[in-house]
């Protein structure tokens, strides 16, 4: 790909994660072959230093599994991950620990991701203890205050003494962000960080995350199903379908000039706050639902739902990502005709 190597903080090459489903006794006696669940099935992308990279997809597209692979919470079946110039696909325990310090995660549910019996001080000190960050209590407090200030929870000292249940959803997500910042990471993986937050405060959290990113020069991998926030929040977007990236490029281009029929369908389905649409039945270019990753269709994996599919789409080999110029990649062989 055209991005220069030293600009890249994370390069993922042909990453795969296949799960072996659990089989009952009868099934294994019946001798039927097991069907692999191909959650992530050959994903490649590069994230530049200091950019916000969005991974978009429906449930079942493999976006969260990709996030977990990047966090090294699960082991890939095959493929390569190069972080900051170093191959981190296979690492020993100590290196994994060090990697997790550099790549931190913000989880979806700010209500479940914090121990209810911990005060905010303890919530933030826990990563310091786990990663054996040197310093006495006073030094740690100083770091806690610094990270709370970075996420604009003022006055920090007051918040340190509170319990999670005393905070609103938005404040919790700020604490969750502070908890990642305290380790001075280079990259954050945020999996649907605002989907459980009220619409009125969603923008506030996204603003805060963007400010923090600019102030500290961080890189984000933002995982979501919500195209509207992705457009607002990200620099580049990759659209996933059934374990593979089908389109990737600058956020504005993906939304304004999508090339892949799946991206087009996603965009047409998003509601917009405009009047005059109540009596309309929305025309949806694609029908049905995403197939099971245990039964990935042959050829182009989208052909079963694609309105433009021809025989070649199912008969020939799956198209790889092709360059359409300006860093805009797509995986549709008929893109010029549609």
């Amino acid at each position, binding site marked *: 790909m055209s991005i220069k190597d030293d600009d890249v903080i994370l390069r993922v090459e042909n990453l795969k994660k296949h799960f072996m489903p659990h089989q009952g006794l009868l099934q294994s006696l019946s001798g039927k072959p097991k069907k692999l669940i191909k959650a992530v099935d050959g994903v490649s992308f590069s994230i530049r230093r200091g950019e916000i990279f969005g991974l978009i997809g*429906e*449930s079942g597209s493999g976006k969260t599994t990709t996030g977990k692979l990047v966090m090294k919470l699960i082991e890939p079946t095959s493929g390569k991950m190069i972080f900051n110039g170093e191959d981190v696909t296979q690492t020993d325990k100590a290196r994994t620990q060090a990697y997790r310090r550099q790549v931190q995660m913000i989880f979806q549910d700010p209500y479940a991701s914090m121990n209810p019996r911990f005060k905010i001080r303890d919530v933030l000190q826990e990563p310091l203890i786990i990663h054996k960050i040197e310093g006495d209590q006073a030094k740690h407090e100083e770091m806690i205050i610094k990270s709370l200030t970075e996420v604009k929870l003022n006055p920090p000292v007051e918040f340190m003494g509170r319990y999670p249940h005393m905070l*609103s959803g*938005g404040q919790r997500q700020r604490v969750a962000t502070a908890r990642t910042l305290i380790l001075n990471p280079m990259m954050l993986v945020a999996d649907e960080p605002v989907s459980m937050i*009220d*619409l*009125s*405060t*969603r*923008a*506030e959290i*996204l*603003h805060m995350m963007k400010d923090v990113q600019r102030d500290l020069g961080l890189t984000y991998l933002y995982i979501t*199903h*919500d*195209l*509207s*926030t992705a*457009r*607002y929040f990200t620099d580049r977007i990759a659209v996933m379908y059934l374990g593979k990236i089908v389109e990737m490029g600058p956020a*504005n281009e993906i*939304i304004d000039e999508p090339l892949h029929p799946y991206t087009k*369908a*996603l*965009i047409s*389905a*998003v*509601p*917009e*706050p*405009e*009047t*005059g*649409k*109540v009596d*309309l*039945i*929305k025309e*949806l270019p*694609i*029908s049905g*639902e*995403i197939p099971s990753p245990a039964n990935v269709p042959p050829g182009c994996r989208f052909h079963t739902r694609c309105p433009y599919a021809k025989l070649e789409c199912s008969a020939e080999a799956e198209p790889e990502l092709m360059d359409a110029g300006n860093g805009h990649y797509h995986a549709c062989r008929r893109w010029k005709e549609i």
Partner: protein
Amino acid sequence: MDTILEVKNLRLYYHTSKGVVKALDNVSFNLKKGETLGLVGESGCGKTTTGVALLRMPSPPGRIEEGSQIVVDGRDIMPLSDKQIRKDVRWEEVAMVFQGAMNCLTPVYTIGKQMMETLQEHRDMDKVQAAELIKEYLNLVGMPPEVMNRYPHELSGGMKQRIVIATALFLKPKIVILDEPTTALDVIVQAQIINLLKKLKKTFDLSFIFITHDLALEAEVCDRICVMYAGKIAELGTNAQIYGKQGPMHPYTEKLLQATPLLKKKVDTLSFIPGAPPDLIDPPKGCRFNPRCHKVMDKCREEEPPLLEIEPGHMVACWRCVK
């Protein structure tokens, strides 16, 4: 158009040990036949509480207070006994698709058995007849009859939502309350369900109350929009009045709309509303929105604004709109 539902001075209070939570305070609106009325607002503003109140089943310690009126198709249901409500109103006249209902299907029964339960409870029907009816309704929501023998875990979220909608329509209600019916679904499935709901509404001559926090979705579904804040109506207007050129009149609606990210238009900054909805045991003096309002005046802190009709069909509770 005839009015199918009229709500007058609806008050629902929770009597807790800490004090009285005024979850709904003098809410009045009506629903016309064949209309979809949207209820929007942040969490904790009384949207779902309104829905549950219309079925007359507030969760304890909630109580619908004296003086509230809920008139369904010309009959006030407040004086009815619980037994009558169960027999005549719930699911017979007013049905509700609860939030996350698709996750409440029993995992150990087949879809057919669960749907059968509703029918056997309310209708004198043998199993063969009931199975026929279930198949008919499954077809209406776009599902093959084999689904009857499936278990919930074998179905996707969109399919389960279709089952729940079909079950709500079984007894031919006149009004269906839909509480966040598409919130947990992906956008394409969401659009499919919305299309389905629009078709069913025509087929069965239904009236909808559509509860959601998503103003963009509301714009595509609702004829009229009722914006709620802290247990009260802040603004009520037609789709064109809220989403049209002139835009909404209440600062709360205005901010909510500005906080909705748009897909087709790139914006540099999104707006948000600082703070959170107030504690309803001790709501702020004056207008309940005043501590968070960007257009607040002195009067707003002192006196509560009345809900006034500022143009035909457009009601706003804001001192800025009172001439």
